[in-house]
């Protein structure tokens, strides 16, 4: 009796989300996998074909290189910002945090447009440089690797700030006092306390921006050149221009597998820390 009423209540509260999970979230992934193995034929030929293709390999390397560099730089910049935020009094921190959250919640399209204007051949920065050096300067800063990286970093820094800030704020202030009374200089305190104790946040932030950057689409498409295409752009290319759905699906599944292989440790680690 009690059992059935609790099942009924669970059904009432969970059914809308469950319907979404079953009929909207799950099917696309299954469809992609299904298409990639040629349906019930379950053929892995396409995988062999894709992995052997030069374009795919090149794109895979590009994806890892761009994600790796941009995540590393974002981590350093994000750490600088988090450190600054953590050292501020609470009121000012809230305001400065707003300066980080606003870019976080601004569309990437808006930022890409702004960087086109800023970094373009006739853009703001080139104009300033031309004026300053009294020459016609046209540094190529978009539609290449530099533009892609700048766009990626600008997008990832706010994402990595929040977990690091949370770890920094969790450090007991007395530990800093103790370290300095015991004779440690600021550099030693920085490495043995600040950096060491913020590692959980650093790791969580790094993994999550890395997983997100693996799937990034707009930045390489708008700010990158032909050599900066990432796996998402390749999926888009095969599905919308070549109309080769099975190949697009195959690449998607591979991208998914890579993302999960980086996201799963993060999820497991978070769960183990919560207990």
């Amino acid at each position, binding site marked *: 009796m009690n059992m059935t009423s609790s099942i009924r209540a669970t059904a009432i509260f969970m059914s809308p989300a469950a319907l979404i999970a079953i009929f909207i979230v799950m099917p696309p992934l299954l469809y992609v996998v299904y298409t990639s193995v040629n349906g019930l034929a379950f053929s892995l030929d396409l995988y062999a074909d894709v992995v052997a293709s030069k374009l795919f390999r090149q794109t895979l390397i590009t994806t890892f290189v761009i994600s790796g560099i941009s995540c590393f730089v974002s981590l350093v910049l994000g750490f600088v910002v988090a450190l600054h935020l953590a050292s501020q009094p609470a009121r000012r921190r809230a305001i400065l945090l707003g300066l980080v959250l606003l870019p976080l919640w601004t569309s990437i399209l808006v930022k890409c447009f702004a960087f086109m204007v800023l970094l373009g051949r006739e853009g703001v920065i080139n104009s300033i440089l031309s004026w300053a050096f009294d020459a016609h300067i046209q540094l190529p800063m978009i539609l290449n690797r530099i533009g892609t990286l700048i766009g990626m970093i600008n997008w990832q820094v706010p994402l990595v700030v929040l977990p690091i800030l949370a770890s920094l704020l969790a450090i007991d202030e007395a530990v800093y006092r103790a370290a300095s009374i015991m004779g440690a200089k600021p550099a*030693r305190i920085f490495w043995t306390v600040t950096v060491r104790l913020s590692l959980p946040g650093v790791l969580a932030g790094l993994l999550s921006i890395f997983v997100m950057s693996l799937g990034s689409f707009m930045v390489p498409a708008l700010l990158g050149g032909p050599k900066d295409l990432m796996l998402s752009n390749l999926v888009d290319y095969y599905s919308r221009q070549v109309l080769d759905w099975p190949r697009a699906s195959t690449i998607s599944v591979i991208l998914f597998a890579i993302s999960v292989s980086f996201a799963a440790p993060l999820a497991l680690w978070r769960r183990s820390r919560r207990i």
Partner: protein
Amino acid sequence: MMPLPREERTQQVARDDSRPNGLGEDVVSAARSNRRDGSAGLVAKNRSENDPKYAIELKDISKYFGSLAALHPTKLAVNRGEFLTLLGPSGSGKSTLLNLIAGGSGPSTGSIFLDGRDITRMPPRERGIGMVFQNYALMPHMTVFENVAYPLRARHFDRSAIRAKVTEALDRVGLRGLEDRKPRQLSGGQQQRVGIARCIVYAPAIIMMDEPLGALDKNLREQMQGEIKRLHKDLGTTFIYVTHDQEEALNMSDRICLMSLGAIAQLGTPDDLYFRPRSRFVAEFIGESNIITGRVEGNGRMLVSGNETFLVPHEKRSTGSELTVMVRPERVRICGSAESVTTGENVLDGEVVGTAFVGGTTRVAIQCANGLHMTAKMMSDRLATRPAAGDQVRVCWSSIDTVTLDS
């Protein structure tokens, strides 16, 4: 040149401390010179007579936050090797004082001298002070060994010296064998021992303890009190101890500095504070007290309400001026009506209004005939023989147990 004997060599370093700059380097080099000495590190060395008189001297230091005074201008000198306790309710300024000595912030006015050198504006790391925190403030990611080795590594000791000193310090606090544990694997008492070990390991000039036992339960607290006292005796280092627990202060200290509202209320030995409190605040904060107010009548007498006169110690104040005196409850006797009263004793008739049996002692509240409330404290008797509410009694106390307070 002949190698100097050890004592003199450290002396020389200590004298160099008076140089205006690079004081911090000297602390480090003083510590470094210990390294060559092997394991003689933890016990404070005998200083020569040339050394400044006080371990710590505070000259008119104050701390204001805006117009709010956390600490009014204060003078305080701590003797070498002394165990001084800063006692007071929260917000009395004791933590502010400690923080100023530790270098958490600078004073608004005044200066601080450590062994005769001015450390007022010196960053904490260069002061060479040790501190034990209420919530331990251990490095959560380091083992016990690494925690205790931390101050030595900051001073660039070599590996073998670190091992020897850490081992000695852990021995002293009874934590040998737990070197590889992390702080969260230890009990509260053990964590605080680590806190103490990492403080004594670098033989700081003074050791400050900020309510170190505040987070521990009563039994453990009493045991640790004994251990800290013994440590103080063994090391001979100057201790500054902060607590709000008066029994802890009375038990452990050479001198107590009782603070109230950002100023020193009274500085003295535990005996001074208990038996010769200067003000009503001191009398009421430490122990229990009966406060009696009245006017000076001259001739060693005071006039209180109900036109009674009490014998009090001889009073210099002029007749008619206000007078506040204090009697400790354990000095107030309840005597039978037949009992004769010796000279110099005050006697009042009254009625018992309540008793509190708290184990070894019983507290008896008495409403006296002249309207005065008195509390008497006596060794407990069985219920049948204890005074009970409604009993008509006489209370007496001697004029020599009466303490005159500043009003």
